[in-house]
């Protein structure tokens, strides 16, 4: 979620307020929790970037631990000196030791790394495997099951957003390496001059700015799986280095002569046509054959539109679980989405659904709520006409206004209230004329029915009340 909230649980109030001041100064949103009386925050543990734990009574410590444990996605813990060396039963990877008095470089480096972890987790597909019932997806699932148990290198192809990482994770999760790390690198998003140190790590002083030595992604993935996304965008010199790791299972950190052995399964992915890239001289043929041992192609969403309702349900369930509002789709909305071509595939669908959940929480999305490109042409035209009609009553309203109050009263008036009153009067008249039938009243006012319903709700006008 890349949040800036940091929770401080520390009975040493002086220290807590010092930490709060420092964190606030360096752009975080620290929250000191009241420990007397002890109460846990309303927010969920996942809503923080980090939780700092200091001096706590046994009882407070247990309560905090239970609160954190109840959320599998809880924020990492920063332990103040009295808790150094303790994990309180949490995963070692989620526990950091924070010195006090504060050492600025240590604090900022921990928070930087915690922020990266959080962004990585957020970018991680939640889905356990490619969802769908179409033949194409069933075939992909079958291939995943076939290859998972072996250490075979896999090449996942398919357009951007089809869910290549979901496939890679599914392979890792069904393999014997599932208890070891799965590390993903987007080779296309990291500048080529930085990619080598990103993948292989570097020694202190290897280049300007390398103030400490650093692990690379290969090292982080030891024993597990390394997912090299967008490998088709990798520079030729880097391709040579990857080829060598695949052949010899060794590499060197940048700035070091010592070779390191590695036990990492490689899954690569690209949206590019690698054979074409070879032809253009942009991709090494020998690397292609090393990677293409077991190719899996993810189908485009437009080729499996029957899966759309299932995917939408899955995405909305996930959003609800993460505390976003419940979002439902009217049948005609789903129908409209089925006639769209989906160049961005499942990722585009997920972004759309999530966006609608933010804009229309706990309501039903109808076709008009969709961004224009998702609406069928006929709906777009009708909507333009309606919008033009929506303006019409306002025009008449202003004519009327100028008739009966040509001159502004000397004491002035509250324009907003005045307009609202005129609007309410006209709505009442329209409803009376329509015998209380909202859709007819909406026609009289050249409004969409939903717009009128909203206005009725806004002004708290009940149909009965209008009729009486």
């Amino acid at each position, binding site marked *: 979620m890349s949040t800036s909230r940091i929770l401080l649980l520390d009975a040493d109030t002086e220290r807590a307020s010092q930490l709060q001041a420092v964190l606030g100064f360096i752009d975080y949103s620290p929250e000191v929790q009241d420990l007397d009386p002890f109460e846990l925050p309303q927010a969920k543990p996942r809503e923080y970037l980090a939780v700092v734990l200091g001096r706590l009574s046994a009882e407070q410590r247990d309560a905090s631990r239970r609160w954190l444990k109840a959320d599998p996605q809880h924020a990492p813990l920063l332990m103040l000196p009295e808790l150094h060396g303790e994990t309180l039963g949490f995963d070692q990877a989620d526990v950091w030791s924070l010195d006090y008095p504060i050492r600025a470089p240590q604090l900022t480096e921990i928070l930087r790394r915690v922020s*990266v972890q959080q*962004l990585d987790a957020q970018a991680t597909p939640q889905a356990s495997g490619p969802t769908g019932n179409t033949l194409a997806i069933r075939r992909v699932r079958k291939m995943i099951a076939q290859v998972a148990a072996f250490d075979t290198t896999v090449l996942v192809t398919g357009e951007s957003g089809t869910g290549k990482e979901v496939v890679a994770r599914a392979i890792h999760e069904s393999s014997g390496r599932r208890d070891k790390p799965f590390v993903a690198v987007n080779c296309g998003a990291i500048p080529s001059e930085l990619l080598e140190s990103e993948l292989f790590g570097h020694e202190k002083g290897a280049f300007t700015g390398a103030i400490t030595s650093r692990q690379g992604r290969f090292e982080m993935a030891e024993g597990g799986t390394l997912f090299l996304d967008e490998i088709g965008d990798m520079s030729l010199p880097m391709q040579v280095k990857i080829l060598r790791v695949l052949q010899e299972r060794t590499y060197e950190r940048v700035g070091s002569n010592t070779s390191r052995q590695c036990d990492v399964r490689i899954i690569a992915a690209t949206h590019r046509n690698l054979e074409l890239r070879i032809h253009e001289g942009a991709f090494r043929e020998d690397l292609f054959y090393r990677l293409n041992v077991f190719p899996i192609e993810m189908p485009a969403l437009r080729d499996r539109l029957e899966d759309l309702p299932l995917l939408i349900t899955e995405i909305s369930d996930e959003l609800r679980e993460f505390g976003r509002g419940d979002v439902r789709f009217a049948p005609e909305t789903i129908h409209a989405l089925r006639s769209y071509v989906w160049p961005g595939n499942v990722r585009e669908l997920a972004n759309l659904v999530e966006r609608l959940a*933010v804009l229309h929480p706990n309501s039903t999305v109808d076709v008009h709520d969709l961004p224009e490109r998702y609406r069928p042409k006929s709906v777009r035209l009708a909507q333009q006409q309606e919008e033009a009609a929506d303006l019409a009553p306002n025009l008449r309203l202003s004519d009327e206004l100028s008739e009966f109050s040509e001159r502004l009263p000397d004491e002035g008036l509250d324009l907003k209230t005045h307009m609202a009153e005129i609007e309410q009067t006209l709505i009442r008249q329209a409803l009376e004329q329509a015998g209380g039938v909202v859709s007819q009243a909406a026609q009289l006012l050249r409004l969409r029915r939903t717009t009128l319903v909203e206005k009725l709700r806004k002004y708290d006008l009940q149909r009965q009340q209008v009729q009486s």
Partner: protein
Amino acid sequence: MDKIRTVVVDDHVDFRRLAQVLLEEVDGVELLGLGADGEEAIHLCERLRPDLLIMDLSMPRMGGIQATRLIKAQDDPPLIAIVSIYDDSEHRAHAASAGADAFINKADFLGSVANLIDAIRRGDHVDISNSAA
């Protein structure tokens, strides 16, 4: 050229004030709105349709990276510049893959925003891989 219609989103009120003062001084920029988190950014961009959104990376409720993904799903999305106190390859990569157009190191906010606005006004192609830092 028309003014660059801009929205600024940051959870710290002092920073929003600073940005407001700064941007009101810049010729060719019209400040349309200010927001405090990613969800507000989504609502503001849907309603105001700005040309440029300058947004903090870490904010409560919803951070800038996630909001970028969702704002880029709207019709005619704005250019998005992510502002961050962390400036490293990982944070830049996340901003890029979410669809951000520029990355600004908060420590050099003034200079970077000025460069970015100059680039937009010159009609340069704004791309995160060569954005000012």
